[in-house]
């Protein structure tokens, strides 16, 4: 049995407290009025210099126009060609308000969104680690894998964060649904009201699917389904330790196969709902796979890191280099898979250059250059070069180093998926982002290692446990 070391508990709590301070500071420092925004921008302009601030001003207008006016494909094409001019025309044609005032208001909304987005990204990031680990665990059962049963309790530990994460994510979705924030732009009822000046034909056309009650029902069903599998499989896995026969293993085998079918459908829909709908005009048919790939890389990386950590503390003596090697192979393979999907999505959109699709990448490349390209280096080039060599996959500190970069890279990936639509160009990685990340990291570490203490570290009666202990490559 593993007992939670006090040091680790303090470590997690320190992260949670510091993170909570960061989150609160982020919310408090968000502007409340347009005057605040003007003051903040004056300060920023002062710091950045006139040249860098000016072009940003222009494209914010473009963003604004895109958000609040019906954008048909035709308009979009022109928008792509001359965003600035188009934006100026739109403002002239549709609004009589002072454009400067309107811009300030727009920036204020972005800045008010920022702490919420930061919170959402960090909570989703750790949520997807737990969910990915659950899918990986189910695959091991369904495939009757012989190498991995020795790692089952580690995987169960990582998935132990799922119930907590589910509550957090659902509360955040509820907060959006009750208009405490505006990170989900499409939830604004004005957009689907034909009488309104802000009526959006495209979003209104999707409202049969993309409406708040159905959105919440889907979220609830998915979360309950995943948590039900997690609860049942964990219960069976522990009961299996004292069983006389293989009935619990067989139960888990069937359960896992069923769960995987449920999972791959619901995961896809979840990724449209919780991520893709941030850009409600945009769509990509392989988005579900893309999120899935990122999820799996992170989950397997975390399983490897937790295993290496436990081993370094003198637990899991029977885990050998071959187990780490296999996990590192998965990290490598899923990193390549992620890149493959990332590029498939990018290249088709880049090649076709259809305005309604390409805006997604135009915004990211124009306003998020560093995180956008930085993340490709971190998620592809780095693991490719570091984990390609077979021997390096057996060197623990190599795996740890690659793992940390991969996790940071995939945080940036989620950041790039969410931030451009909610915060636009008013982004930085500052107190709210790092605070949220620290808070959920602390919570994750605390919950995961507490779950690991609750059961023996090696399952006893699993039919493959002997093979797993003797696994060698």
């Amino acid at each position, binding site marked *: 049995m593993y007992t939670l070391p006090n040091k680790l508990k303090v470590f997690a709590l320190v992260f949670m407290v510091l993170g909570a301070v960061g989150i609160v500071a982020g919310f408090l420092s968000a502007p409340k009025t347009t005057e605040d925004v003007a003051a903040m921008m004056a300060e920023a302009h002062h710091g950045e210099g006139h040249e860098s601030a000016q072009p940003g001003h222009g494209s914010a207008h473009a963003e604004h126009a895109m958000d609040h006016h019906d954008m048909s494909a035709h308009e979009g094409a022109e928008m792509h060609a001359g965003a600035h001019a188009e934006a100026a025309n739109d403002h002239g044609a549709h609004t009589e308000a002072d454009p400067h005032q309107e811009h300030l208001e727009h920036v204020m909304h972005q800045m008010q969104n920022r702490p919420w987005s930061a919170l959402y990204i960090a909570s989703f990031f750790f949520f997807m680690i737990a969910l990915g680990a659950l899918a990986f665990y189910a695959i091991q059962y369904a495939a009757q894998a012989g190498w991995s049963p020795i790692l089952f309790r580690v995987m169960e530990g990582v998935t132990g964060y799922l119930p907590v994460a589910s509550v957090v994510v659902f509360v955040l979705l509820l907060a959006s649904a009750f208009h405490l924030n505006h990170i989900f732009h499409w939830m604004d009822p004005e957009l689907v009201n034909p009488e309104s000046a802000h009526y959006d034909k495209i979003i209104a056309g999707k409202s049969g699917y993309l409406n708040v009650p159905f959105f919440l029902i889907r979220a609830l069903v998915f979360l309950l389904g995943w948590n039900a599998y997690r609860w049942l499989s964990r219960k069976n896995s522990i009961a299996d330790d004292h069983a006389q026969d293989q009935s619990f293993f067989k139960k888990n085998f069937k359960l896992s196969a069923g769960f995987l079918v449920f999972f791959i459908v619901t995961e896809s829909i979840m990724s449209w709902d919780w991520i893709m709908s941030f850009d409600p005009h945009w769509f990509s048919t392989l988005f579900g796979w893309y999120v899935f790939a990122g999820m799996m890389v992170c989950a397997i990386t975390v399983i490897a890191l937790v295993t290496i950590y436990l081993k370094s503390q003198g637990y899991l003596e029977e885990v050998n280099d071959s187990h780490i090697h296999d996990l590192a192979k998965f990290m490598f393979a899923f990193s390549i898979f992620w890149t493959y999907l990332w*590029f498939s999505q*990018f*290249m088709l959109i*880049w*090649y*076709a*250059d259809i305005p309604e699709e390409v805006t997604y990448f135009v915004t990211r490349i124009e306003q998020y250059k560093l995180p956008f390209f930085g993340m490709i280096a971190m998620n592809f080039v780095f693991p490719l070069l570091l984990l*390609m*060599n*077979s021997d390096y996959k057996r060197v623990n500190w190599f795996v740890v180093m690659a793992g940390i970069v991969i996790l940071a890279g995939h945080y940036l990936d989620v950041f790039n998926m969410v931030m451009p639509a909610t915060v636009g160009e008013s982004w930085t990685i500052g107190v709210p982002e790092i605070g949220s990340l620290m808070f959920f990291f602390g919570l994750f570490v605390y919950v995961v290692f507490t779950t690991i203490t609750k059961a023996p570290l090696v399952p006893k009666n699993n039919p493959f446990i002997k093979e797993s202990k003797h696994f*060698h490559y």
Partner: protein
Amino acid sequence: MASKVIHALYNDDDILMNAVKTVRAEHYHIEEVYTPFPVHGLDKAMGLEGTRIAITSFMYGVLGLTVAVLMMNFIMIEDWPQDIGGKPSFSYLENMPAFVPIMFEMTVFFAAHLMVITFYMRSKLWPFKKAENPDPRTTDDHFLMAIDAGHGDVDAMMKVLEATGAVELNIVEQEQAH
């Protein structure tokens, strides 16, 4: 000069693996093991050096990537500039995403084919080469371990081999080829 070799035949890969370990522990020299299918971990048990084909594979991949880059640059940009997907920039870098699939395929193509050719050359294999395996049963269901019996007590060796579970033991005089 002729040399003596013991051919020990086995009919199970697990027994063979244990036999290889025992024979190595006795410090007898295993010349070669013939198996009908690849036996996992046999190379390590025999103490063979790790393969370097992975390194050549990497180099061939880099070569393929370079060829693809130069080729696409010549074909699509220099020799006959082409308008790619309505993006007539005539710059390699700006049209690069369109070339990535070719870069990838050429990398794989070069790595795979040159690796196979390297493997054949390194193992001295070529078309119409006469098979070297000493017993045709090793292509069906038997495993054969050839142990150098030139120096040492042959009777003692035979006893050890018998204890490892060999189904058949032959002492063969063979022409020294290498």
